């Protein structure tokens, strides 16, 4: 046993580390950790507080642009939200009043996201082959010819 004294010392040191860790852990683990699963539940409310909603949905746009919304809901793009092509509501409205002009994404890549020809899409869905459409659409905005709010062409 005499010759194993160093082993007991190192084991004691290990025990001290384990005790410090166990005691320290109670201070380090946040209070709400584990309340509803292995995460800090308070974080849900904290994130909600620091990240106010940016999008308002089409109905909130209709509060001021009722005519436009009516046209959209009657057309082929009725299921496409306003904020898909326009920016999120928060960029345009603050405290119920207009704060800045609404940015619009006029790029062909936005339209191509849905209308670029891909094998996996339903055959009846309007699709184009980008390279062939009007001699290649790159750089040309689709909305020069197509009406985005109620496309018929």
């Amino acid at each position, binding site marked *: 046993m*005499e*010759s*194993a*004294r*160093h*082993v007991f*010392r*190192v084991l004691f*040191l*290990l025990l001290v580390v384990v005790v410090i860790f166990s005691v*320290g*852990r109670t201070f*380090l*683990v946040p209070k709400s*950790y*584990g309340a509803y*699963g*292995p995460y800090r539940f308070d974080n849900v409310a904290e994130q909600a507080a620091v990240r106010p909603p940016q999008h308002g949905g089409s109905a909130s746009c209709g509060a001021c642009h009722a005519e436009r919304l009516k046209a959209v809901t009657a057309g082929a793009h009725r299921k496409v939200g306003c904020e898909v092509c326009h920016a999120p509501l928060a960029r345009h409205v603050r405290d119920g009043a207009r704060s800045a002009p609404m940015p619009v994404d006029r790029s062909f*890549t936005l339209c191509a*996201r849905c209308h670029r020809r*891909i*094998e*996996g*899409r339903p055959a009846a869905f309007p699709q184009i082959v980008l390279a062939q459409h009007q001699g290649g659409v790159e750089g040309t905005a689709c909305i020069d010819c197509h009406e985005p709010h109620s496309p018929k062409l």
Partner: protein
Amino acid sequence: MPEISGYAFPNDVHVHWSLMIVMYPYITGFVAGAFIVTALYHLFGKKEFEPVARLALATSFCFMAIATFPLNLHLGHAERAFNVVVTPHFSSAMAGFGLLYSGYFVILLLEVWFVYRREIIETARRSRGVKRAFYAALALGTYDTSPEALEVDHRAVKLLSAFGLPAACMLHGYVGFIFGGIKANPWWSTPLMPVIFLLSAAVSGIALLVLLYQVTAKLGRRPIERETVQAMARWLWFFLILTVTLELLEIVLLAYENSDAWHIISQLLTTRLEFSFISVQMIGGSLVPFILLAIVVTMNAYLHDRVRNTLASVASLLLLVQVFSMRWNVVIGGQLLSKSFRGLRSGYQPSLFGREGVIVAIALFVLPFVLLWVFDRVLPIERAAPPAEPSREPAAEPARRTA
């Protein structure tokens, strides 16, 4: 804007797990691989590994010390890194990291301590002032170097290796498990993944040691032991065969089953990963080293030492590239295919600068070697005196009395 071929879901076109997630299993692999080499000597009594046993232990330790860096660089918020250690749970493989990492680290620390204890004491005895206090603290205040005490150390090292080997295997196996457990991705989701990761870790660890051993021997003007290089080449060959067999088995099985996922994986391998998988991982990184090592293993009697060392070194260098490309093909490859199984995005190119860039990755790979140099300054990897068996060392007794 990444190019898309076929039908890819919009949220499948981003590579979120970047170069740092490639570096993570690569670096952790060296920890497990190097530990296997130490265990071959301490646990399985392979005497020919004696010249590299301490180097392997130190290498394992230095890579272990920075194993978390790639994850911290990827995730950001390094100040939260400790949370995974204090709140381990089993609902996510990644959250089990705290238990595995700290458990293995303790074993590794203890093993280093027991292996170096005699030298720590001898340095403490020889030194004065701060240096003496430092080494005395490292020795935990006990200066017992009697043959009985050294025998206890010997047994402790053996016991720790016995626990360390499964711990090292689990630490790296779980890295593979993280990928193997993602069922939405057919390129990852296979029970073979932890085994492949583990075996390729052994390959990378031994390959690194073949190179490190020769470099350190050259630098220290020591002879390179023929048996050591030969034994490492033999084990390297063995692990290479196992790894590549399993890597191919996974793919051959997918192809033979002709499952729905094979449609996209065959495209992935022949288009996006054509260079990194077929050319680098399979031909340059597996076939060529296989042939080189086959020459070393089967033609041992006819080889000049220089030829053997060169062949083993070239094979090891290629295998280091092979294992890196394997990590790349798994991590990045798995993110190039869409969950639709009908679309691929264009290849991923990491940025040069930035937190997850190529320069940081290179620095991460260099860092353990800097640590190894520091380790060698504090606890010399090469013994000053010829090695002696602790049990047959009555001469150590008077030395204790003079302390």
